[in-house]
């Protein structure tokens, strides 16, 4: 297991940030790779993997130095229990990232997302390039749960659990969006996509409102808990949208990130959309957006450039840190999870 002396422990970081920013109700974690010439087999000369944004706006690395982690999930009961989707499978830690175990075996590789059911935290969902696995024993075992998914077309980019109901989850797959209401005992397609659905998220304000980004079907909204989906008319569909973020401080604000279109925002619940790329590097190439639920600060990760932040929802941007990074995900974790 990993006990890197150069890495700060998650516990230490949590303690430090809590003392410096008592008003903050969430911890901001960033899953990123800062990869200067690394190829498989070579030495790693930069820090990659998990970062936490501190109260002083710095990004502190913790846990494993590993360039191929793409998503993180935290047990809401215990912030020391972490699950990380990585090229090696799902990585599990029970001590805040000091030690890790590869939870899956050779038959599962390159998961793209991992998500804990907040109402049944022993249940963890894993989005795989060839389906979905669900652990119901806190990561000890990872059986596939694919009943109802097609034999082909089950490439899964993201999976999210409904925060209002245990066992209810939506999966963003190649062939569409799939819904389960029985802890993945069965899935049914609720939207048919032409190409991969890249993200699916639930509104923090309205549990019935879900948004999804896609590669070729634009950006979708569901106002009935994911049962039916409708495309936003004001958004382009020619190129891929990568992810969506809700503003927990303002129910009418959403942001979309993507390589071609950069940052797209709405401040009227999706009636109108505006590009907010002025101040981002030319060409923008946004890989991820995120919104701090405590203050509405908008973050945009520009591919292998840096994380940029905006306190006016994208009207102006400043470079915030993690220069040279490829950010796979922003995660905002309630501090109550201790």
């Amino acid at each position, binding site marked *: *297991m*990993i*006990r*890197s002396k150069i890495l700060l422990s998650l516990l230490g970081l949590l303690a430090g940030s809590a003392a410096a920013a008592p008003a903050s109700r969430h911890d901001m974690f960033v899953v990123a790779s800062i990869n200067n010439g690394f*190829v*498989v*087999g*070579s*030495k*790693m000369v930069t820090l990659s993997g998990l970062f936490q944004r501190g109260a002083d706006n710095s990004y502190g690395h913790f846990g*494993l*130095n*590993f*360039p*191929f982690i793409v998503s993180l999930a935290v047990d809401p009961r215990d912030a020391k229990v972490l699950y990380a989707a990585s*090229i*090696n*499978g799902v990585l*599990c830690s029970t001590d805040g990232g000091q*030690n*890790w*175990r*590869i939870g899956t*075996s*050779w038959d599962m*590789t*390159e998961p*793209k997302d991992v998500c804990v059911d907040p109402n049944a935290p022993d249940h963890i969902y894993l989005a795989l*390039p*060839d389906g979905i696995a669900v652990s119901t024993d806190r990561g000890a075992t990872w059986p596939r749960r694919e009943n109802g998914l097609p034999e*082909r*077309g089950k*490439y899964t980019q993201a999976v999210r659990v409904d925060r209002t109901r245990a066992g209810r989850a939506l999966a963003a797959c*190649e062939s569409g969006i799939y819904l389960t209401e029985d802890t993945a005992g069965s899935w049914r397609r609720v939207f048919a996509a032409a190409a*991969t659905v*890249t993200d699916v998220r639930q509104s923090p304000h309205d549990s019935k409102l879900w948004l999804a980004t896609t*590669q070729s079907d634009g950006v979708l909204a569901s106002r009935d808990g994911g049962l039916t989906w409708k495309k936003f008319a004001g958004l382009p569909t020619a*190129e*891929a949208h*990568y992810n969506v973020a809700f503003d927990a401080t303002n129910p009418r604000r959403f942001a979309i990130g993507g*390589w*071609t279109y950069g940052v797209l925002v709405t401040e009227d619940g999706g009636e109108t959309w505006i590009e907010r790329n002025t101040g981002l590097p030319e060409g923008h*190439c946004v*890989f991820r957006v995120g919104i701090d639920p405590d203050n509405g600060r908008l973050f945009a990760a520009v*591919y292998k450039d840096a994380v940029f932040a905006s306190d006016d929802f994208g009207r102006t941007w400043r470079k915030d840190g993690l220069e040279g990074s*490829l950010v796979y995900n922003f995660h905002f974790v309630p501090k109550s999870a201790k």
Partner: protein
Amino acid sequence: MKAPTLFLSALTVLAAAQLTAQPSFTAPAPASVVLKQADQRRAAYEARVDEVVTWRASLAKPGELLTDMGIIAAKLVRREDADLCSRSVIELMKDPGTGPFWMFPAVSVAYLGRDQLSPEAKKSIRDAWRKVMQVRGDTENHWAMYYTSLYLMSELYPNEPADSWYSGKNSAENLAESREYLIHWMDLATTVGQGEFNPTHYIGEYAIPMMFLAAWAQDPEMRIRGQMKLDWLLADLAENTLNGVLHGANARTDDTSVIERWNALASFFSWIAFGNTPPPAGYGGWGIYFAIAAKGYDVPEVIYRIATDRGDDFLQRDLKRTRRRWRNSDVLMAPIYKQNYTRRGYAVGSYQGGMADPIQTHVWDVTWAVPDPRGVHNTMFSMHPMSSGYDMQTYFTELPDQMIKGVTKEGKASYDSPDKFLGGSRFEQVFQDLDTVIALYDIPAGTRFPHINGFFSKDLVNLTVDPSGWIFAQGGNTYLAYRPLADYELKSIARIKSSWTGERSDTGDKILYSPHLKNGTIVQAAAAGEFKDFAAFQAAIRALSLEFKLAPVPTVKFTTLRGKTVVCTYGAAPVVNGQPVDYTKWKLFEGPYLNAEKGSRRLTLTHGHLERVLDFNTLTITDRVRAN
């Protein structure tokens, strides 16, 4: 997209290779002599093994610690400088690499050093396997290396707890997972074929781990599996070489090897196992890791003979499979129907087109024999230069846009170059009948590079653009006729020489650039000795019946030089003498030398009276001398 073409340290070794004597690399090409006596073959083999080890050990700089595990391995196998090796290992393990290209060299040092390294050095290796998470990678070769390495280290350190391994699993768990994967992989390869088939470089990433299993696995089952799979790989290599040079289709190759066919790690394996071609510079960088265990392995005579002792022309058909397709496909792995037709002076090889791998596939060529292949571009082919995020997403678990940009910086510099000669395409369909190839292209409008590239070597002579529409040329003792089916321009090119840097140089080669979406190429090869002279060959080709049209889809009806009437229509099964080709009947191997039924796990190797059966059902190797 995490796969390097070569690990960086190998490049360092290759650079050093230019400075230190490598007898077989600098000597004249080996003569075509078949060593019939077992002791002669063995002595020659051991001499080659010693040459590699001696050379690599000689790269040590006096008075300095060793910074290359290949040198340490070489010294350990020579049982010299154990103290220096120990101190160097301790230093190297302070900052280990990560991933399979680091793991298997580390395994070699761990095993060779069992009775030579100091306890502190051994502990430093063991600690490295605790403290640094190893990247498993995303390719078939990564996993062969990763799981072989983890298997052997888990056997070397049994009964150790989970917190003493980077994986967080105990020795038994690591061992079980590794064993299960390796057997799964062998099952796949021996039933429906290897995914990364006949790679020009990655053959080492399979052959070396199998050599390690054969040499060091304690479990007799895994030891015999290693030996059998190594036999299998070398037999597959032998079948697909022409005087030691790997030719025809490759799941994976690179910008250099696809043109200078000899210049590949595969040539190291031909050289060391068969002695029938020069080794590449630095013995391919990785060659040392094969050599350090090679004396525990006997190259079976039947494989040696397949590589070196051929009489008649032969046609061999093999079944392979594509890399895993995560999306954009009805199947996880599509079958590859591969064939090669080999004569004394040239070979024609192909598969049916499409992508075996998203970046580095080579679909077909004619390769001709030359007395010394070093520096010779002895090949001819055409291809569609595909560059597509969609196709990358089929094989990679990435978002669409960054991949092309990323891959060009990861050792595949040519990927997004319109004048590249490397790669397959969904819009290419190929049919081969003996020494005739018909490649058809139906490229949708809007495709990034809407043209095809034909490769015309600097080493062709008598290049003649004939009013008939054929282009005639001679390579070695092979006459070549190339018929473009659409207008083209034949021009000089500063070709990409380095897959890593994208460095270009004017090598004297030419590109046939044809900017037409509906397109095609017919190539007919023949031995010069079949004709009175070059003019007679040209006359014979002109006399062949050829009808074709390009719309609505390319269609060719051609009577080959061998008298077959072939009808190829893009999107339809080829028809030969009125009979549609049925690929579903393709066997795992079928030919005079290698034979296996699909799904059988059983390969029969034959040459003359010699026969070896590799049976993965019973894990037995059976040799016999057949009666007439």
